[in-house]
């Protein structure tokens, strides 16, 4: 092995990071679908040729994808070795979206390209993009009532979409025949593939400059350094056990809560995440798959220690166990559409809730932690066409050691902007009656939670059906260190003057709406941090003056501290 000087090491690390960042940017810039182009629901990375482990990942990828592609890449490598998947050649690109082969949900479509040097596979370049549709029972793929994977969409095992640099038109026709608005997808496919080519060109120039042997040595060293850095961070956590639970409202089919039971153990320089005791696999789509469960833990830890470079080494000091037989490790044909958007955020919440005690300066009380997916599908008679509308929305962040939680922050797993009301009204036959702060929603605490969103949408024309995949309807985001929970998520359908609340609170499928009917959604507030009696009285008064809490609520939630005896 080549001896590496620390300068070359740092320079190669920056170079490999740059390769991934450029892939991320190229993908978003060229992508057709707003989900990728505007919401950045994609990620790019470099993976080892031996076992698919993560070498480097773009810093602008959607957080939910931290570490996920190392699982799908490993599956591809194993399937090629065993002959199940056809062997690669230069210029090939595999496509795969099978959740059970190291994926998330079906809409997250991965491309994986072997990168060759001197006739050998040097590493894999892979990326994931969230396609707006991959077929299935409902447009967009988020069916709250699906009970099997087939209802969720087209499932692709790893197959070559590009062979020697040329797209397989026959396979493409099969895909197009199974997804909605297929004519626009070619724009995303070309962007996704060309991002990998951008990465390959940049990676080649780094290898040419520093030499293959040096880069190989640097990759090994980077992995060790990341592991050492994470291990050093873990020393901030006192040895012992930390327990927490998080509750998913229901699976969308059976109206019972699902429990994530987590015991974090800090011992022998490692951190073990034990999920034993969590609920068994569920009938509806709130199952998670192994890769998503692992990534949810990784992304929570990255929120806590954002400095550690994204490399397989960063995850080495972690052991994740106890998921077998629970809904966090579902197998075919369990439906999984809720895993990436909702269950992953509950897993992260459990990690935060467990570790805030050990790391009170670094971890916040629970954030709203739902993507707030509201889908509306129908026919617009004025435009003479069918439509599918999605409203995603934010919620309050948890209070923290330093300050109150942010209002209307994006989901734990996302970094996307919400669409403007004006754009929604241009495109769909709806009228927003309100887009406001969810008053009173921030969990009380020394530093209170941030406020959620309160919006109301009226259907203007034609018949439509409303669907919801949200969470935190049963219990609000958890307060920490004596702080109180944030307000729960509330969905109301106002039809013929009657207020209907979905049975599953945060999840429902195909509720019929007529013109004049309204949907009101109030998203969760963040959890409070610390005892609310310790809150600065001037800040309590300020929140009342600004109408964020009613005077009565404030008096109840933020009691005057008792005078010392």
């Amino acid at each position: 092995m080549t001896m590496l000087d620390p300068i070359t090491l740092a320079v190669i690390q920056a170079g490999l990071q740059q390769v991934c960042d450029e892939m991320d940017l190229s993908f978003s810039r060229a992508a057709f679908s707003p989900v990728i182009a505007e919401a950045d629901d994609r990620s790019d990375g470099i993976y080892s040729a031996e076992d698919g482990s993560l070498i480097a990942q773009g810093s602008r990828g959607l957080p939910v994808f931290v570490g996920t592609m190392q699982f799908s890449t490993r599956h591809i490598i194993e399937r090629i070795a065993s002959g199940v998947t056809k062997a690669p050649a230069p210029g090939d690109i595999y496509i795969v979206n099978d959740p059970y082969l190291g994926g998330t949900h079906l809409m997250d479509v991965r491309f994986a390209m072997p990168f060759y040097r001197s006739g050998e596979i040097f590493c894999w370049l892979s990326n994931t993009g969230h396609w707006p549709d991959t077929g299935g029972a409902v447009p967009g793929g988020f069916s709250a009532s699906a009970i099997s994977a087939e209802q969720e969409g087209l499932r692709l095992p790893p197959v070559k979409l590009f062979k020697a640099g040329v797209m397989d038109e026959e396979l493409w026709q099969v895909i197009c025949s199974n997804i909605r608005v297929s004519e626009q997808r070619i724009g995303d496919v070309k962007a996704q593939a060309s991002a990998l080519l951008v990465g390959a060109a940049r990676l080649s120039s780094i290898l040419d400059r520093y030499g293959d042997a040096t880069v190989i040595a640097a990759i090994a060293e980077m992995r060790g350094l990341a592991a050492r850095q994470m291990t050093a961070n873990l020393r901030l956590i006192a040895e012992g056990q930390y327990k927490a639970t998080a509750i998913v409202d229901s699976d969308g089919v059976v109206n019972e809560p699902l429990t994530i039971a987590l015991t974090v153990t800090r011992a022998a320089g490692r951190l073990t995440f034990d999920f034993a005791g969590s609920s068994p696999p569920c009938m509806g789509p709130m199952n998670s798959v192994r890769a998503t469960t692992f990534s949810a833990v990784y992304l929570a830890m990255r929120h806590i220690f954002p400095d550690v470079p994204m490399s397989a080494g960063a995850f080495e000091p972690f052991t994740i166990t106890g998921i077998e037989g629970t809904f966090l490790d579902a197998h075919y044909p369990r439906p999984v559409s809720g895993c990436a958007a909702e269950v992953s955020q509950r897993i992260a919440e459990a990690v935060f809730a467990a570790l805030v005690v050990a790391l009170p300066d670094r971890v916040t009380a629970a954030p709203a932690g739902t993507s707030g997916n509201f889908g509306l599908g129908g026919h617009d008679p004025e435009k003479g066409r069918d439509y599918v509308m999605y409203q995603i929305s934010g919620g309050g962040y948890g209070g923290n050691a330093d300050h109150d939680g942010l209002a209307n922050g994006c989901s734990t797993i996302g970094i996307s902007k919400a669409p403007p009301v004006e754009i929604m009204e241009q495109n769909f036959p709806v009228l927003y009656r309100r887009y406001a702060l969810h008053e009173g929603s921030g969990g009380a605490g020394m530093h209170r939670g941030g406020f959620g969103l309160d919006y109301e949408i009226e259907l203007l024309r034609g018949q439509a059906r409303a669907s919801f995949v949200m969470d935190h309807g049963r219990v609000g985001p958890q307060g920490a260190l004596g702080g109180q929970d944030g307000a729960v998520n509330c969905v109301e359908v106002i039809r013929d003057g009657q207020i209907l609340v979905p049975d599953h609170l945060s999840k429902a499928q195909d509720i019929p709406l007529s013109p004049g009917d309204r949907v009101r959604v109030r998203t969760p507030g963040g959890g409070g941090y610390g005892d609310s009696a310790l809150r600065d009285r001037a800040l309590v008064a300020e929140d009342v003056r600004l109408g964020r809490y009613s005077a009565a609520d404030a008096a109840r939630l933020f009691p005057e501290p008792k005078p010392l005896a």
Partner: protein
Amino acid sequence: MWGYEVKADRMTGLVAGVDVGGTFTDLVIFDPESGAVRLAKVPTTLENQAFGVLAALDQAGADLAHVDLIVHGTTTTTNAVLERKLARTGLITTEGFRDVLELGRRTRPQPYGMTGRFTPVIPRDLRLEVPERMDARGRVLTALDEAAVARAVSALRDAGCESLVIHFLHSYANPAHELRAAEIAASLWPNRYITCGHALLSESREYERGVTAAVNAAVQPLLERYVGRLADELKAKGYARDLLVMNGNGGMVSSRAVAREAVKTVMSGPASGVMAAVYTGRRAGINNLITYDMGGTSTDVAMIRAGRAPVSNEIEVEYAMPIHVPMVDVRTVGAGGGSIARVDQGGMLRVGPESAGSNPGPICYGRGGLRPTISDANILLGRLSPERFGHALDQVRAAYADQIGAPLGLGAERAAEAVLTLGNIHMAGAIRMVSISVGADPRDFALFAFGGAGPLHACALARELSIPRVLIPARPGITNALGCVVADLRHDFVRTLNRPLDGADMDAVAAIFAGQETEGRRLIADEGIVVTDVRAEYSVDMQFIGQTHLLRVPLPDGRPTRDALQQAFERAYFERFKVELATIRPALVNLNLSVIGRRPEIDLTRLIDPAGRRGAVTDAQTGVRQVWFGGWVDTPVYWRDHLPGDARLVGPAIIEQMDTTIVIEPGDRMETDGEGNLIVTVGG
């Protein structure tokens, strides 16, 4: 010298540009008759920037009675926004939507870390709602409640608001309600500080339009008071002409009119630097430039193509603070001289993103800084003169040896070299990201290095980016002030169409462009400033139907045919994204027009006094010092102002001047270009 004919009475006087930066206020004065140039640099006076401006004019010994034109770049509005030291401002908006300005568009400041803070420009108790509603096509759904408007206006006035924003949903489609509400407000409001949402930006997206309007209103009184006071002071000292102020679009505007669209002055400082680069590049015959302005805490980068300043309608001045009016597209890409180096817990060298800022600043400032920075590395390695800048060389060496060298097993110098190398890699990466985002390849550009620290790193950075040439202007440290003098008069227009190209009425397009051009030419004529020519630059923003991001397509004139637009768009799309999407139809989203009045040429060769130039390069040498280029190398040091007009040399060399230090790396070839610039051919 000026090369054109104008009325003599307008052109005998001096032309002054004065730029207020974070630390220094810079002044440059040109005398068109004699060709003489005067420069001044004084500390910025933060409380009232006018004191610094006057001090600079004083230092330059300018007789204001003989000054014909003063163009002023100010950070008054920038600082007000960033520090939220704003005029008390009220909002009247559509019922149900007063929180839009606080909710933003659901983001957090950074991808990782579930924290963040945001202070809205207008607090919640000063955001009032009135019944009214338009739909997306501009049809009235709920009539404007005029009595409610009057009540809200009075309430905000009585609450002590000085400025007022009227911001209704879909006003871009039909501004009638905003106009009527403004009329009602005008009769009740004690001043002219009323901003309508549609007036600055007639484009959909309620948050971006609302923030733009709110910032405009909230800085309007501050800017008007400031320029008014400064104009009075200048008048008292004999200045008889109109004071002009730099706008963020790279144009200048009369101080009498600037406050109406005050938001356009946010980002005016970086814009003037880019305008100076455009001008200098054009004179030097180099029209593709990446500007590289490295300061103490951050670095600004812009990409100039075909001699045009890049303009964007979508600048975000900080987290969740979008200002959507046309502004020069300058990107802040992070590190500056104060970026801190460290070895992390895993044993990896890191540079930034932490910065020592200006207080305490780098160790070499001698203000108590203890952690090694990029500036300290430059001192330690002899790139910056230890005599001129090094107050604490031993301390710097010790910090590098202990904090960086020891954990990496390196000596202090090797450690400092590593920090510069890594800092350059990060900077190069950031510049590559900017170029990718606009679809350009850095190798097709020259690097225009300015700011105090830009020329220190430019040659090494260019090598990292495979940029073949570096242009270092005569006075890198006063580039922004120069930009004020050489900027154009400029008016920008945007009209949203948002139609499929198939169905667009091309006669209407031509009529819109023609109307805008007439208006722009009228505005320039009204300003009464001498221009040599007025030209119009046309472009459209297009996209494939179903997409959200826009692509700007320049047009040769204002009468495009549908076929020409289709072809120009497809070509531009392929150039940018290397993707052909023949089966998908495009949409015509925005029509953009800039009417630009070009001001008389200014001779830059006198920025360095020709009388001071020596006959030979060796005569300009002030000494030799040891500089670290992978090892200590005896390196000649020159004084820039003494270099002959046709100087050539091969690196390594250090060139010092009052306002910066230039490092010519070993093997790089430097020559002067007859315009007073240094042109370095990298690795030549």
